[in-house]
């Protein structure tokens, strides 16, 4: 297997809304050409200039090319795909 990369923590742009429990939020991310959603602990969400970001894992390059897709490992599977892995536009992912 070639080019296996180390997972590192990243911040992924997302939209959030009220969760089912007080300590969580419903997260929606545009990925894989669709919107995917799941619940995440509040501690994984940060806000910067009114943009919410989710702490997740990826091997994204420090300076990914615009238009490139980055594979991200979510804290839990999405309802829509049943997978923790999503592909997100590089401009929506940044190293932690």
């Amino acid at each position, binding site marked *: 297997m070639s080019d296996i*990369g180390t997972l590192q*923590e990243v911040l992924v742009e997302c939209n959030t809304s009220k969760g089912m*429990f007080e300590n969580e939020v419903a997260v*929606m991310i545009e990925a894989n050409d669709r919107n995917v959603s799941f619940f995440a602990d509040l501690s994984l969400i940060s806000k910067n200039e009114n943009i919410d970001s989710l702490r997740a894992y990826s091997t994204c390059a420090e300076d990914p090319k615009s238009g490139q*897709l980055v594979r991200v490992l979510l*804290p839990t599977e999405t309802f829509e795909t049943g997978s923790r892995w999503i592909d997100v536009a590089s401009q929506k992912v940044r190293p932690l």
Partner: protein
Amino acid sequence: MILSNIEILNCLEAGHFKIDPSPGADPGKSPFNTSAIDLHLSNQIIVPKTDQPVSVDLSEGGIAKYLANNSDAHSITDHQPYQLSRHEFVLANTVERVSFSLSNDGPFFAARVEGRSSLARCGILVHFTAPVIHAGFEGTITLEITNLGFATFTLRPGMAICQLVIEEVKGKPMMASSQFQGQSSPAGNI
């Protein structure tokens, strides 16, 4: 390999994973079992609304928001616990937050949520499927509780509701770093 109570303590002290609030330092005392650790019910019970005239299609987007908007949250106390009727299904979560981080150099750990034999004997299931807490997970644990028993069952905040069996992950979880280099669509480079 399943961790013993001693190994769970050792790993907590080494920071390989976290359980908050701390279960304490005595492996010979609750919440420790010989090869698991008890977790406790929080003060929130979520009851899905059952009067929705729709079917849920997971392939459609926005499922998480839909579920959040179509359930009722109940706060429970010792004086006002929740009475789980026969055949009723609710969601709950644990007091404890767990963290099985992937951001260190390892070793890495995952866990399984299991019910407790005392509750099982009463017909109480605390998870149906998907008991695995994967490496990389962080947060409280959501439980799917249903009563298959013979009587209404009282859910009280703080009761020992499930147990966590912790195992070491062999090898370091990785992903292909260059799989999507240069691509602009999931279909790949043509």
